[in-house]
């Protein structure tokens, strides 16, 4: 479904993402993890079309989306959320989701119906007429997901959706992610919270200092020597 090939992205002399390739199959939940500064967010932004790569290609459903720009990528059915919620501050939750739905229909009333549906899915129906700035962090993150879902994507990119949430909130969000997958959604998560990811991801890709150091099922990946040393330092690697 999504294929990243030999992507390199530099900022001046710094190579943030260095020759990374990865794939996400249809219906799969893949988590992209790594310590701070590993290049996760940069890679995410390259995939979402915010940053063009210096080298390499990104393709979605068999067609190249390299450097296409986030608006057109969204129209192709690849949606995203933001790590720090980027909401339409003057709008209510319903209006925010309506903006997403308008990319599939010109009719305001139809878009509003779609918006109400996706708010139901993420569990925000009771707050739909509240200004989005009054929502809790968890609410804002779920509204981000609702707005992305309203564009009717086939795949969704989630940028650290669990960051800043407490345990019950994390569990609700994991339930939501599983539910989305049951409905046929393909999901790529960028995550810091390894424990949460273990429970939901089919596969984990680990980045460290811009390079891919592991790719495989969660339990296997997390026992790999290079992954443990990247996160905890060499002292913790079991002999």
């Amino acid at each position, binding site marked *: 479904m999504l294929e990243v090939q030999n992507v390199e992205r530099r900022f001046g002399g710094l190579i943030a993402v260095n020759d990374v390739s990865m794939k996400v199959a249809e219906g799969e939940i893949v988590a992209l993890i790594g310590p701070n500064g590993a290049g996760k967010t940069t890679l995410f932004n390259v995939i*979402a079309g*915010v940053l063009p790569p210096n080298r390499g290609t990104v393709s979605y459903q068999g067609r190249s989306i390299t450097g296409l*720009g*986030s*608006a*057109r990528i*969204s*129209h192709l059915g690849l*949606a*995203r959320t*933001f790590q720090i919620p*980027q*909401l*339409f*501050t*003057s*709008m*209510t939750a319903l*209006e925010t989701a*309506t*903006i*997403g739905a*308008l*990319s599939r229909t*010109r*009719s*305001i*009333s139809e*878009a509003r119906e779609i918006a109400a549906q996706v708010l139901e899915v993420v569990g925000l129906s009771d*707050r739909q*007429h*509240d*200004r989005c700035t*009054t929502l809790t962090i968890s609410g804002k993150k779920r509204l981000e997901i609702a*707005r*992305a879902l*309203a*564009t009717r994507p086939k795949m969704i990119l989630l940028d650290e959706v669990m960051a800043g949430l407490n345990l019950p909130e994390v569990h609700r969000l994991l339930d939501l992610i599983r539910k989305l997958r049951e409905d046929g959604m393909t999901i790529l998560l960028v995550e810091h919270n390894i424990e949460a990811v273990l429970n939901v991801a089919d596969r984990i890709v680990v980045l460290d200092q811009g390079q891919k150091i592991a790719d495989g099922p969660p339990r296997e990946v997390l026992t790999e020597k290079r992954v443990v040393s990247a996160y905890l330092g060499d002292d913790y690697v079991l002999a």
Partner: protein
Amino acid sequence: MKCTWLDWHRLDFVGAGILLLIAVGLPLAMEDRFFLNLLFLVFLYAGLASAWNLLGGYAGQFSLGHTAFFGIGAYSSTILYTFSGVSPWLGLCVGVVLSLTLAFLISYPVFRLRGVFFAMATIAMGETVRIVLLWSREKVGLPYGISINFEPGFLNMIFSNTRGYAWLGGAFMLLTTAICYLMTRSRAGFYLKALRDNEDAAQAVGIDLRRYKLTAFLLSAGLTSVGGTLMAQYVLYIEPATVFNITISIDLALMTILGGIGTIFGPLIGAAITLPLQEFLKDWLGPFGAGAHLVVYALILIGIVMLLPEGVMGLLRKLRPESRGQRHA
């Protein structure tokens, strides 16, 4: 712009009815030329401020260069009418085409800028148009000021009765308000609010920023140009120092902010407050020395903005917070 007519609220009909009544009925109810003149100016500026609001309010692109389109509108019709006898109605269309062309060309550099930088670039645009006019005036032998001969007639867009101008202004106000209204009820209007609130998020849900900003800019520039033509036909005399004066841009922004930026009625209310206030202060404080009324006018404006940071419409919204599903937790 496709609209969902089923979405009309009953309140919208009430608002449209009141506006129609004001635009058509108020000129009929007035006899005094002073008030009819004032009414024309209020209508004209209400329309101009609404046009500014399309770009500055809904799209959040704070332009201070609208003087350029106003002046182009005034000059296009006046030059064509006084030197070639072309009807100002046709001149108005020529002005609109020129303004749209300028807006389209200038959009490429200015839409790369955000916030204050956008405002500064638009000021530069306005000044450039004025300076180019002053420079080319000498080359083609155009007089500094141009007087329009007083030959009343609908085709000449000149009226012997001030009431005719009041209606003309009223029609202009209705036109711009209707366009603003249709905008807010269409996808374009929703998208403009979205990109004003957050450009990154707007792009992420597939909004083509340039396309929608440009739509707002073109509509805004074209309508401002129409207003320029109307003003020239009313004053019957134009010169660069007045029709290309940057205070026009500032006044439009001021009225809109005062009434309520990004709302349909805000610009109308703003124009209806500031222009009469200025006139009456001039009348009352005239004996106290030149400029005394401006000092008091400025103090009153500062007071209003401090008390009502969201304009008069913001106050009205606060007075009925539970209506229209606008619940703020």
